[in-house]
């Protein structure tokens, strides 16, 4: 259903494709008088809530009204009125004065409608793992490169949002840095180019089948035309270990490690 936006091509070095903010695609209704909406809510709660839910998203037997074609096309109750008056299959008739119908309409139209629906019952935390099991997994899998008394000292205190913590340890640089942020030092891809017996090493700035570009430690930019294996190009990916593990974790491993790291204050 989501008609994906154009592929961004190569992502910026060290980071994922930048998240884009979606402006509203469809015109929104102008806000109604709060007093009218409140009146409508009162009438709705007596007449409609049982079947359609207090939030109009469906209840005992009745459908979600917010996205129903009648409500989406209704302006002031002119479409809603006849449905209430006549009833529908499985829905009784309601003989309400026109003013009350338009109040109910104002209440129903006060909800934001869109496919990018904001979560209402969002869980308070993503922390669901077992810290002890996570510690054991960490000891077994991660300690050849990392230590909670050294590079990850106080990690749970430094990154307090568990989701960001989880994304960050899974793939450093892949979370919470915001668009345009420079890559963190641990995520920079290095490259060495060997040409005429000479090896030039630096930070990778671009690579495709036809060109490799790098910046040497002293800041000198270099570019080389590529023709198959000439010159010889070697990429050094500091996150290779993280990438290799993605196919191995169970989701429980991930949740446990996050619970453990969150406890490392």
């Amino acid at each position, binding site marked *: *259903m*989501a*008609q*994906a*936006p*154009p*592929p*961004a*091509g*190569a*992502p910026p070095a060290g980071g*994922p*494709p930048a998240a884009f903010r*979606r402006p509203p*695609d*469809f015109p929104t209704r102008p806000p109604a008088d709060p007093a009218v909406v409140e009146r409508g809510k009162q009438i709705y709660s007596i007449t409609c809530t049982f079947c359609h*839910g207090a939030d109009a*998203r469906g209840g005992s037997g009745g459908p*979600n009204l*917010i*996205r129903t*074609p009648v409500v989406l*096309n209704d302006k002031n109750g002119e479409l809603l009125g006849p449905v209430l008056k006549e009833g529908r299959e499985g829905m009784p008739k309601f003989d309400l004065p026109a003013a009350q119908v338009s109040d109910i309409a104002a209440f129903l139209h006060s909800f934001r*409608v*869109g*496919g*990018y*629906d904001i*979560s*209402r*019952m*969002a*869980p308070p935390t*993503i*922390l*669901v793992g077992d810290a002890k099991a996570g510690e054991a997994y960490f000891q077994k899998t991660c300690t050849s490169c990392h230590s909670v008394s050294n590079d990850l000292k106080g990690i749970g205190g430094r990154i307090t949002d568990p*989701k960001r913590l*989880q*994304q960050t340890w*899974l*793939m450093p640089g*892949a*979370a919470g840095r915001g668009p345009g942020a420079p890559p963190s030092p641990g995520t920079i891809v290095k490259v060495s180019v060997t040409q005429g017996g000479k090896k030039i090493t630096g930070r990778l700035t671009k*690579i*495709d*089948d*036809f060109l*490799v570009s790098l910046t040497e430690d002293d800041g000198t930019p270099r570019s080389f035309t590529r023709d198959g294996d000439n010159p010889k190009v070697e*990429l050094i*990916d500091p*996150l*290779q270990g*993280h*990438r290799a593990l*993605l*196919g191995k*974790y169970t*989701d429980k491993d*991930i*949740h446990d490690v996050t619970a453990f790291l969150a406890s490392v204050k």
Partner: protein
Amino acid sequence: MKLLALFSLAGVLSAQALDPAVLQKPLSNEWPTYSGDYSGQRYSKLTQINQTNVKNLTLAWTTRVSNGPGAAGGGNPFRGGGGAAVPLITGGEGTGEFTGGFGAGTNIRASMLMVDGRLYFSTPDNAWAVDARDGRVLWHYFWKTKGGTHIGIRGLGMWGKWLYMETPDDFLVCLDALTGKERWHKPIADFNQQYFSTMAPIVIGNNVIIGTGNDLDAPGYVQSRDPETGDVKWTVYTVPMKKGDPGMETWGSVEGARVGAGNVWIPGAYDPETHLYIFGTGNPSPSYTNPKSRDGDNLFTCSLVAINVDTGKMAWYYQLNPHDTHDWDSSETPILVDGDFKGKPRKMALHADRNGYFYVVDRLTGEHLLTSKFSDTVNWVKEINAKGQTIRNVEKDSTVGGSLVSPNNYGATNWPPAAYSPDTGLFYVPQSDTYAMYYLTETDPRGAMGLGGKDEQFVASMGTYLTAIDYKTGKIAWRHRYPGVGGGFGGGNGVLTTAGKLVFAGDLSGNLIAYDAATGKILWHSRIGQVSNAPQTYMVDGKQYLLVAAGDQLFAFYLQ
């Protein structure tokens, strides 16, 4: 009656009109429909550009265009030599201001038509005609929109001298191909239900096949419209709409089915022998959450569906991906192939899905023939059942703690078209191997609306490829990995293959690349900027052109 109408149309054909007979032929000099021809193969019979001389390709022309009423594009009057100003024709029922953020930049993603020496192409709310010999813009049509999701437009359709365009605010617009003047526009769908219409119309006889969808759970549908009047000839919903409709038993409730989506936004293929229009449907809705109303397989979402164009009746369906929970549409255009399968001649439909699997079905019956995985990292499938369907591991649905799933929401591939060469027997598809965490953010058992209820966070790309699949075995014949440690996602914007034994595709770094179709060896490239659509080819005045878009620019190459 139908034949008579076709002949009478052929009788009044003038310059710049499409001879309906061309639509029945394999792709050659002209490019008269979305995929070039009805098969979806994107295989051109042209051989002037071939393996021997492709290294000599050179730029024939380039043209830049701009969305909106301000600049008709093409040729700068102050530079001289440009000739007359480009006519701008304006239509639409809105103010033209509301483009939802996607419409601001000009990005040509659609397939273009080439008929009688003219190219016709579109971006959301805009259409242009261009001389295929030199890229000169002949007219620009601008539709003043009411709004709607402006994420893309997949191209134009043509019948005789008329062009057809869908708009994000749900109109079918008919234009005079000669002048760009509007003949009529007719509503496609209810804008207030947040439908937006992006499919390239497909003209089959006297049917203009159109489709629509939305992100707010409303049902998807495909329609035939009368090419003269725009009136509806038939409508097929992709989900059951009322009690007793076929497929209703695969939903938790009637209401659940009615808000089950199954959007129609990418053209299908057409088999002239059986009169079947075969296309892929979108995913069920809500996309990520699992209310009771969605219990079951959710027909006819994530399916290949065959409709008889004369009657508007469904002949068969094959559901690839029962009860999808990751917003992986099966919209990718199926490719129709006649060939050998397990020692028997078969008429088949081939399809590589956003979900990372490749499927082959018999296109006469929908009988399943093959399912194989083309993305190595894909991890969401529990089993492939007896019918060849990929059955999900429910543990890989979005969860509160997060599920690490490959592929990400964009998918192992997406709508940018694949191609097939009868010379090599290979199916060429853009591929990327990605991981994302899918977090459930809505625990209300009634679920969310549309795409709500989850937070998908990208983790990594393991590689991006142009991949060649042997349809007989599902095995990878060759794979070209774009250099880099990971690569983006998306894997390029579509593929062309030709009888010159070539495959053309854009890479991730702004290069248009020609490959040996049999081996994947690179034979030519040109860095033109981010290639934004699938390359195409055509022949005019004895010259074969290679055509591609990069953002707001068209590039045409030829041999001098």
